[in-house]
């Protein structure tokens, strides 16, 4: 099919979950999908009012694409769940981008509100297709293929995170490498850079530490936000799990006894998956938060109180807060110490099992 033009997707916010869907949809309709570069270090972050870092990054990436594309795709995400809603900033995102790009580029900002029923997602995308000059028939076909592509991508997600470098996570054309034979037996933790081979971790622990990373997808997978915590964690011998693994039922189970409902879909996912992982199966849970995020601020407090009521957690929990730091040192220190805590707990458990 001849390409109709360039459609730009900023590498920010829900790109970090839905990109496989979006890309397939637009490509099937004959558009060349252009994504902004991952590295913003060279460029300045575009500031507007007093926003959270992820939102600033959206604007920065959109401005980067402004001259290179015919349309920018910034959906107005009101709700991505049949009952719950997104942070209000997502509603305003297309307008903020329009202001920042001074109206110089067309912004496709179709509203996505899944509270309107099962077919509303399809309807929204059909409208997008029509705006881009496609028939409803073409739109439907592209939508089905996008769904298929997205589901396939989700299935391989945990392997992707653990086996690909962070910058390749959303390069859909790069396949997941075959499992390495040394899996389950990580390299001993070498002293970084020092000319020595003494293990930092101390006693050998056979299996890698299973760590659940919890948070908004962009906080988890955008290396510009989290200083590439994924590679840092993997280098420290951790296997990473995320809430993508869990079913809605598993997440909801942990939320059934709340005194007040969390009405943000992302908040529900964070709290539900966090407590799911804290009650079983992993060696540690890390909650990544954005310093300026109102939802995260409330959730942190909420989680701490709930933990207190439950009498603490036997699985170690680390809460990390990110803002525009450029140094990685603070993150490294916390993550290394967290690994020491997890290892110690694991060693105690093994010793306990042996005694029994």
């Amino acid at each position, binding site marked *: 099919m001849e390409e109709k033009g360039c459609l730009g997707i900023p590498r920010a916010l829900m790109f970090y979950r839905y990109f496989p869907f979006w890309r397939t949809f637009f490509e099937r309709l004959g558009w060349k999908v252009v994504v902004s*570069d991952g*590295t913003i*270090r*060279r460029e300045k972050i575009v500031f507007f009012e007093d926003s959270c870092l992820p939102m600033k990054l959206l604007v920065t990436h959109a401005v980067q694409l402004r001259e290179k594309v015919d349309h920018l795709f910034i959906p107005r995400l009101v709700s991505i769940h049949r009952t719950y809603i997104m942070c209000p900033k997502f509603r305003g995102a297309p307008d903020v981008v329009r202001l920042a790009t001074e109206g110089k580029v067309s912004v496709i900002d179709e509203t996505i509100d899944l509270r309107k029923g099962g077919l509303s997602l399809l309807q929204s995308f059909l409208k997008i297709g029509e705006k881009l000059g496609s028939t409803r028939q073409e739109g439907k076909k592209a939508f089905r293929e996008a769904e298929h592509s997205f589901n396939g991508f989700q299935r391989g997600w945990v392997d992707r995170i653990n086996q690909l470098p962070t910058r390749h996570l959303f390069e859909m054309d790069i396949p997941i490498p075959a499992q390495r034979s040394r899996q389950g037996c990580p390299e001993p933790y070498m*002293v*970084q*850079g*020092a*000319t*020595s081979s*003494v*293990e*930092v971790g*101390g006693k050998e622990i056979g299996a890698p530490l299973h760590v659940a990373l919890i948070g908004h997808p962009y906080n988890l997978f955008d290396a510009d936000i989290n200083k590439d915590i994924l590679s840092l964690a993997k280098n420290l011998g951790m296997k990473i799990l995320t809430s993508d693994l869990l079913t809605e039922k598993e997440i909801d189970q942990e939320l059934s006894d709340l005194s007040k409902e969390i009405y943000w879909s992302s908040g529900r996912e964070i709290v539900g998956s966090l407590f799911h992982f804290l009650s079983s199966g992993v060696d540690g849970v890390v909650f990544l938060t954005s*310093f300026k995020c109102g939802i995260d601020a409330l959730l942190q407090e909420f989680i*701490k*109180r709930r*933990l*207190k009521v439950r009498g*603490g957690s036997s699985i*170690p*929990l680390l809460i990390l*807060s990110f*803002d525009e730091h450029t140094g990685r*040192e*603070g993150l*490294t*220190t*916390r993550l*290394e*110490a967290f690994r*020491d*805590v997890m290892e*110690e*707990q694991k060693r*105690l458990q093994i010793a306990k099992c042996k005694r029994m």
Partner: protein
Amino acid sequence: MGALQVLIMANYLGIDVGSITTKLVMLSESGQVLAKTYLRNSGRPIEAIQQGMEDILAQLGKTVPIDGVATTGSARHLAAYLVGADLIKNEITAHAIAVIDFLPEAKTIIEIGGQDSKVIVLRNGVVVDFAMNTVCAAGTGSFLDQQAARLGISIEAFGDLALKANHPVRIAGRCTVFAETDMIHKQQIGHSVEDIVAGLCDSLVKNYLNNVCRGKEVLSPIVFQGGVAANRGIHKALEKELEASFIIPKHFDVMGAIGAAKLVKRARPSETKFRGFDLLRKSCSTRGFECGECENQCEVIELLVDHQVVACWGDLCERYRYAQKG
């Protein structure tokens, strides 16, 4: 006899290079502190490490064989490259290890340093939780340093001055900038220096408890360490707020370095990588450049000893690191 013992027995060197101060400890096989030093970096960690090694040597009276070296603190990697370390450990674990040997039944460690403050929760001699200050240094030593300088008093006199206060003033502790504004205001309306200093101690303590300890279970026995543990004003204010009395270890100011030395003692390297005490007479410096090979644009640092590049770091791809080794 003492010198002879030192020669026969194994010795371990722990180095803790923090944001404001550098601490070195020489530990014997039996875990005894043979020599220790605590000095300000003044923004020059390399010189501080060299000076620290000189201090240690002076205290021991002669060069001793070293069986292992470990580094910790925020400049632990720099220090490790410089001296040739066998082990690099984060400061949270290092502090905890030092306390677990000192007081196995400890349940909480409060550590307030120059730019970091932490709480470490221990249960049954094992770290189960920890927290560090996040985006603000209001609950740390550098906050006190700055305000003491503003009041024209030495930081050493600061704590005792606070104890003389009759009516500590209330000062906003949420943020250093606000605290400063608040403090100047109190000065202008005529409060005594003692009352202001005591107010600053209270505000630091509130900030520490609200920021770092929030949601953590602070149970006794509580061990209080780090440079700020020397400040009697802070000590008293913290105890009052927590309604508990603290245990302050004898070597409270160098616990991180002790922990590092204990860790390397435990690891028992078969042969140490230590570059030797000659290092303090060599010229050591670093230089940085921005690599242009890829879009990462890493800031690469080279360490030069006697004008020779001996180590390289900061490159995400480790291109220069390997070039060094090969």
